């Protein structure tokens, strides 16, 4: 029992699929005036917990006590009425509405009276030290400003408890300190602040309390003081963790060039930073990392290198990797691992075998000249690919929908590495994967470079980039603003990612 609790969860359980609980009997409390961090791996149940507090999901068992009184949040409006605000990972703003319209929409009747004019809203936002442009559609604002609108939204409704779901993934390392300063100020006024994150450093630097959830169960909950990085990691992954070195910096920087981008540009759009004069060379045997805060042109870079989008200016050349660059020869399309494997990587409802071979299904090995599928050959080839890539299925006729995220990603990766292409382009390769699956994916990427392929890894996960890359380029505002070779200076990388400083990029 916690007498200082503002909100308590009592034995909360939730499962979306019967028999697979996302949360199991979680009891914990959030206090006024405190910055409370919630840690856990992807899929541990952190977001589900926040969603339950905010009324987006209902618990199967257990409940919420607000100031000692039982409350039921059937929908967000109940939670808002009880003084709870939430800043979602994917912002809940109507994209075509201005900040003013969004705030007015979300305001409770009491708050609405104070906000009848845009000027009132602007003044209110400034009084919290969070100035925002009021009359531009929010879709046109940078993500950091959209986040600010979300915070003001909670403050307008006088939330006593504000929940943040992964708030720092869209911020650069330099912006993060400023962000926590804002949270500290909000907590100092007596509000409870909850931050779900998977960045340990932030927790150790800024939080008062920390709760760790693993596989839906509460592992620990208490003051940050006295906790170390190592024991938090142990709580998160359930064992002490020695990261296997992945031999960053051992790739060859002298391999043959297989792809060259020269001053590639795409016009920026409301939802995209575009690309500006991006020049990049990818060589056999080398892993190149692309670091940057999300939404700074990574998607566009992926599309251009993959050949899915033609640049508006500049050129992309794919080469056979032959020693003689004067006779470049176009080669097979690069192997691709996209950001969103459900929508772009797989066809969730077609068999694993077809997923593995979809891009080559027309080849003579898999279909007759008349176009009839050679089912037996497809199955046996798919089986050997699964064995090689360690995809665990009962049969290649299974659909990827029934597989774990790790196995799904292995399928996408196996397909990307199966072709005779000399290049692999991956975007957020470990997103949503558990620890073991992430390591496996990184190991295979490193091995692909060892076999003589060029590997481009676009990721917002700095640690993994540092471990795997021979060379890291930093993207900011659609521009390559710096390039660092292993061993990379972490501080320097952080500065570059916020665009505070630019380096001359060697052509």
């Amino acid at each position, binding site marked *: 029992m916690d007498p200082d609790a503002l909100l308590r969860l009592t034995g909360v359980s939730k499962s979306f699929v019967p028999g697979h609980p996302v949360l199991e009997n979680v009891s914990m409390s959030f206090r006024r005036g405190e910055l409370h961090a919630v840690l856990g791996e992807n899929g541990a149940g952190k977001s589900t917990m926040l969603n339950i507090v905010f009324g987006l999901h209902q618990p199967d068992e257990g409940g919420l006590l607000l100031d000692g009184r039982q409350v039921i949040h059937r929908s*967000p*409006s109940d939670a808002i009425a009880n003084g709870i605000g939430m800043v*979602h990972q994917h912002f*809940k703003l109507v994209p*075509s509405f201005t900040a003013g319209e*969004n705030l007015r*929409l979300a305001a409770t009747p009491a708050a609405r009276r104070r906000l009848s004019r845009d000027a009132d809203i602007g003044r209110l936002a400034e009084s919290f030290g969070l100035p925002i442009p009021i009359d531009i559609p929010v879709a046109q604002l940078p993500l950091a400003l959209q986040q600010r609108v979300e915070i003001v*939204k909670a403050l307008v409704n006088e939330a006593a408890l504000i929940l943040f779901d992964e708030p720092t993934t869209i911020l650069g390392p330099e912006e993060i300190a400023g962000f926590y300063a804002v949270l500290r100020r909000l907590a100092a006024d007596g509000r409870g602040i909850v931050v779900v994150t998977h960045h340990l450093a932030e927790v150790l630097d800024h939080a008062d309390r920390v709760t760790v959830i693993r596989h839906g169960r509460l592992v620990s909950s208490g003051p940050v003081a006295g906790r170390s990085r190592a024991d938090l990691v142990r709580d998160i992954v359930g064992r002490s963790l020695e990261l296997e070195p992945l031999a960053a910096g051992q790739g060859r920087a002298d391999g043959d060039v297989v792809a060259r981008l020269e001053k590639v540009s795409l016009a920026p759009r409301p939802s995209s930073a575009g690309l500006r004069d991006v020049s990049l060379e990818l060589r056999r045997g080398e892993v190149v990392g692309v670091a940057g805060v999300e939404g700074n042109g990574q998607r566009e870079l992926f599309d251009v290198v993959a050949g899915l989008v033609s640049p508006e200016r500049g050129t992309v050349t794919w080469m056979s990797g032959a020693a003689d660059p004067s006779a470049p020869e176009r080669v097979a399309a690069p192997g691709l691992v996209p950001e969103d494997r459900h929508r772009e990587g797989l066809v969730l409802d077609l068999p694993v075998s077809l997923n593995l071979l979809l891009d080559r299904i027309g080849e003579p090995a898999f279909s007759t000249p008349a176009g009839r599928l050679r089912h037996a050959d497809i199955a046996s080839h798919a089986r050997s690919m699964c064995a090689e890539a360690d995809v665990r299925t009962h049969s290649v006729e299974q659909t990827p929908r029934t597989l774990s995220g790790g196995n799904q990603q292995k399928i996408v990766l196996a397909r990307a590495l199966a072709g005779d292409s000399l290049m692999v382009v991956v975007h957020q390769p470990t997103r949503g994967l558990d620890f073991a699956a992430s390591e496996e994916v990184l190991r295979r990427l490193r091995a692909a470079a060892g076999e003589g392929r060029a590997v481009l890894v676009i990721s917002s996960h700095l640690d993994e980039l540092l471990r795997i890359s021979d060379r890291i380029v930093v993207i900011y505002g659609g521009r390559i603003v710096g390039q660092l070779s292993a061993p990379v200076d972490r501080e320097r990388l952080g500065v570059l990612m916020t665009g505070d400083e630019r380096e001359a990029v060697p052509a």
Partner: protein
Amino acid sequence: MVFDAVTFGLLLASAVRLSAPILLASLGELVCERGGVLNIGLEGLMLFGAFGAVLGLQWTGEPVLGVLCGVAAGAGAAIVLAVAVAVLRADSVVAGIGFNILALGGTSLGRELLLSPSFTAPSLRALASWRIPGLWEVPVVGRAFFGQSPLLYGGIVLAIVLWAVIRHSRPGLVLRAVGEGASAADAAGIPVTAVRFAAMVFCGLLAGIAGAYLTLVASGGVFTDNVTAGRGYLAVAVVIFGRWKPLWIVLASLLFGCADALQYQGQAIGLALPAPLLLMFPFLLALLAWIVMGRSDAAPGDLGVPFIRGAR
């Protein structure tokens, strides 16, 4: 081609008269679509309204009560459709198509079982035209704009009201939010399902009036099977053509009314095209509109997307 002032006046009056059902229905559809529901069932709602109005007229003998029955039928049918689409998240296109076939069969059954074919309708003049003193005698345009049904005037007033409400009021803000970003509206505490339900019932009310207009004003109190003949589908096209803006929709309806009027007045102005081709004209116009204008960015962001809490 003969084109003197008198025939022009007749054509114009006929065009305005025939634009009314499309206008009323498309204003209803507008509210639905601004709330994110692509209501393909509009045709069926109009058909139920048209049938209900004649049934009411036969029961009561009162044209005004007939219209009210049409409205009730449209709204009642809309509640059924809204339970499927807004509450149960049925795909609005498939449920709408199914609903339209149900309406076609249901009203046809109802006509055989409940309507008397020998019924002589009372005078529907009060419903069909209100002559605005002084103005309706203005040459050429007088009859067209000042001698029309009160339902039509109501529709135009409603368009203006809707414009103001959608743009400048809290209910309008909420409606637009639900159509543009349902999950954001939900997180802001707006009851998305209830708003969409209400929008569909409002659409049913207007479709009911539109249907009543078709039977009581445009065909003298007689219900024939499939009396709407695709006007509900046309109204859906009009909303897109009118860029989801009430005042543009008034103009678009008028244009479609013109196309519709040609089938009656085409002969008079010497347009020697066979009737089926003239009947085809409004649909051809809607199709051409797409070809010329192409895709629109004005469409509500979540149009046609069933709301699922937790989906992005």
